[in-house]
């Protein structure tokens, strides 16, 4: 329940919420947003987190961490429908190195959970690094007040609420409704209920969820990105090898930079404009302290 209280506190200080991330980013000596390119998914992930000041700036000793990848589809990593397992594994390792007591990797999948967990390679990768990779458990669903602009309440898996810190690790993909699915869309995997009804106002739903979950860190896997036929692809020709990750504490900024992989300006994405208006973060790339590295 610690996290929940924390969220309440944040909600009270609305103004602080609005300017918080950018103020913090400016105050520290580290960049607000990092993009790292390179051959190894693991190496670029490590480098990105290091450039942000290391995992210790996000994870405290004894923390119970929830890592939320996209494990939505019964697809192999080559098809870029799910987060790269190497990226997930590296984050698990970094969390443990930073003193985390427990790391859990979890997603409410679209295809059968067992299949997605297996074929994506994520369950095995996470477990090999010492994390737990449980399936979502409907007994842990709880209707919660999201206090969003559109979503007032929804069923949420309490695992995501009870964790001390959340790390969002989405993959960058084409999507025919929100145009792109990256960090904010990824939170649809932390909830239950009739998720398919959120599509009627998907952009607002995504922002409401992102505002509710508030990850400590977002690492966008863009090692392989899905440029068409999203969000599950199916052919190698749907996939582009981008060999990059983007990391940052500001969830809007991460998605904003991610959009550029698809030659889309952040301002062209309705959900990012809503996110900016609601103070979830910065989407004007000019205003973000961005650091690019190659390893």
């Amino acid at each position: 329940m610690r996290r929940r209280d924390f969220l309440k506190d944040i909600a009270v200080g609305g103004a602080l919420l609005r300017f918080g991330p950018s103020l913090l980013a400016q105050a520290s000596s580290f960049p607000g947003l990092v993009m790292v390119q390179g051959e190894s998914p693991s190496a670029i992930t490590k480098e990105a987190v290091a450039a942000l000041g290391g995992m210790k700036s996000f994870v405290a000793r004894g923390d119970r961490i929830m890592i939320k990848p996209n494990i939505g589809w019964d697809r192999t990593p080559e098809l870029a429908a799910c987060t790269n397992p190497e990226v997930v594994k590296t984050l698990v390792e970094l969390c443990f190195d930073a003193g985390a007591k427990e790391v859990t990797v979890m997603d409410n999948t679209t295809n059968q959970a067992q299949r997605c967990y297996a074929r994506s390679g994520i369950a095995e990768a996470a477990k090999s690094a010492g994390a737990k990779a449980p399936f979502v458990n409907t007994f842990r669903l709880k209707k919660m007040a999201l206090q969003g602009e559109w979503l007032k309440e929804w069923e949420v898996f309490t695992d995501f609420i009870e964790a001390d810190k959340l790390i969002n690790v989405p993959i960058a993909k084409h999507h025919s409704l929100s145009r792109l699915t990256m960090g904010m869309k990824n939170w649809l995997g932390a909830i239950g209920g009739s998720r398919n009804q959120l599509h009627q106002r998907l952009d607002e739903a995504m922002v409401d969820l992102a505002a509710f979950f508030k990850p400590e860190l977002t690492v966008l896997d863009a090692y392989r990105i899905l440029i068409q036929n999203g969000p599950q692809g199916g052919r190698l020709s749907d996939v582009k090898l981008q060999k990059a990750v983007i990391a940052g504490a500001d969830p809007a900024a991460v998605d904003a930079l991610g959009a550029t992989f698809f030659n889309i300006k952040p301002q062209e994405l309705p959900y990012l404009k809503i996110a900016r208006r609601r103070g979830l973060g910065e989407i004007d790339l000019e205003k973000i302290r961005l650091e690019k590295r190659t390893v």
Partner: protein
Amino acid sequence: MKKEQSKKYRALQYLRIASQTVFFALFVYLLFGTRFTGEDYIGRVEVFFHFDPLLALATTLASRTFFTVFALAGITVLVTVIAGRYVCGWACPFGAIHQFFSFVFKRVKFLKPRKEEKKEKRLAWKYYLLVFVLVGSLFTVDLVGIADPLSLLYRSFVSGVLPWLAGVFSVFIGLFYSVRLASIGDSLAQFFSTLALNQTFQQGFLLSLIFLGLVLLNLTRERFWCRYLCPLGALLGLLARWNVAKVRVDPKKCIKCNLCTIHCETQANPYPNKEWRSHECVYCYTCAAICPTAAVSFPVAASPEKIEVVNLSRRKLILTSALAVVAAPFFKITPARKRAAAKLIRPPGALPEPQFLQRCVKCGECMKACPTNGLQPALGEAGPEGIWTPVLVPRIGYCEYYCSLCTQVCPTGAIKELSIEEKAKVVIGRAWINKSRCIPYVLGSPCIVCEEHCPTSPKAIKLLRTEVKLPDGSIQTPLAPVIDLDLCIGCGICENKCPVVDDPAIYVTSVGETRSEKNRLLLEILKPQALPEEPR
């Protein structure tokens, strides 16, 4: 006279119980193993069906082809001819269930064994049933699956017992959460998830009642099913006449107490000795163990002696056969034979409908393996002979793109085994949009859920800007789905995930299925798709 029960047969009884337990455990193990285990190919979990000579014989008769794996049934035949019906008494998991409940009912005194009439007519029922099923098979009505004990047992477990157990298990998990032992609840829930039990069956209640009824029949007679109904037992009974293990009651020790005959599980009548029915005995050794003077034994008698048989009236045999012959057309008075049924969506790899019906034994293996619970026992979709055959009901579960489990587990080849790559190319139907219910077409607002879930690449569901007139007269241009029928494989995920839950605005019908030459939509003469071949 020294009164002492036989220790040897007491021990053999325990050995028999151990054997039944092992075989039942094996059955359950294979049952639970019939799921996605993390591997795409799960091995021969259906192997025990191949030891069933009734399924082998009836399927061969009905389909006029011999499925080579059924050669294993020869082992069962061989054991029975040489030794007698040990398979019934020592191995059959359904027999084990009946024996267990008979034992329980006796213990709680709900069932009191009695000495039966010498001329017991009911013993003959199963033989008539066998004749009916086999003659029916010869006239291509494959009803064997309804009464075959292994099919019946597996089907009952898949659609009734396991969903019920799952429900009980869920209640227990819920209890742990309600008493704030969430960590135990979590572990149990995770374990439960890995079992991937299918819990929704459209005839689950009916099939459970049938199973329950058969179990409760043990209240009237021990092993009621085995005694009077089991057609496989009857088939093995016909083979168990010249076997070497024969009962012998030592007249010097016998005190004529009749205990052996009263407690005989299957009414094989060990006393008087010469009235023992070799073909009814399942070698449970109850008679030998219960005898107060150890007079009953089962010596190996190499030379067959004259044996008592169940009186099968020739008249009734002819009548039953004739009935099966005239019944065959009766099962075909159905439009299912005349034209394809829209909702008869068969699993990928299913043979063309007539051949499929000749082979499918309604065992439910495919329904157990299906990862989404989409394969359901048919009621009327396939006509009366197609009852309990598998049909995909997309509203319950869809066909997973990278899954061919149902094709791997079919014991009779009614569903041809396919690799994942082959399976992904098989069309089982096509999707259609009901524009009068579809959200973009009716409300003018976006949805795209069907398109998002469409697994083919490129997607069979495309989104087009469409002009829609709303009730207030205004015009909206939302993205609305259209279907590229050339790409659609009929997997049904669109229907399953459609937010219009009660009657989905997109739905699959069987038209265009690869297996049928008649149920065509696009005349694919220019680009022929391979029909599944019949396995041999």
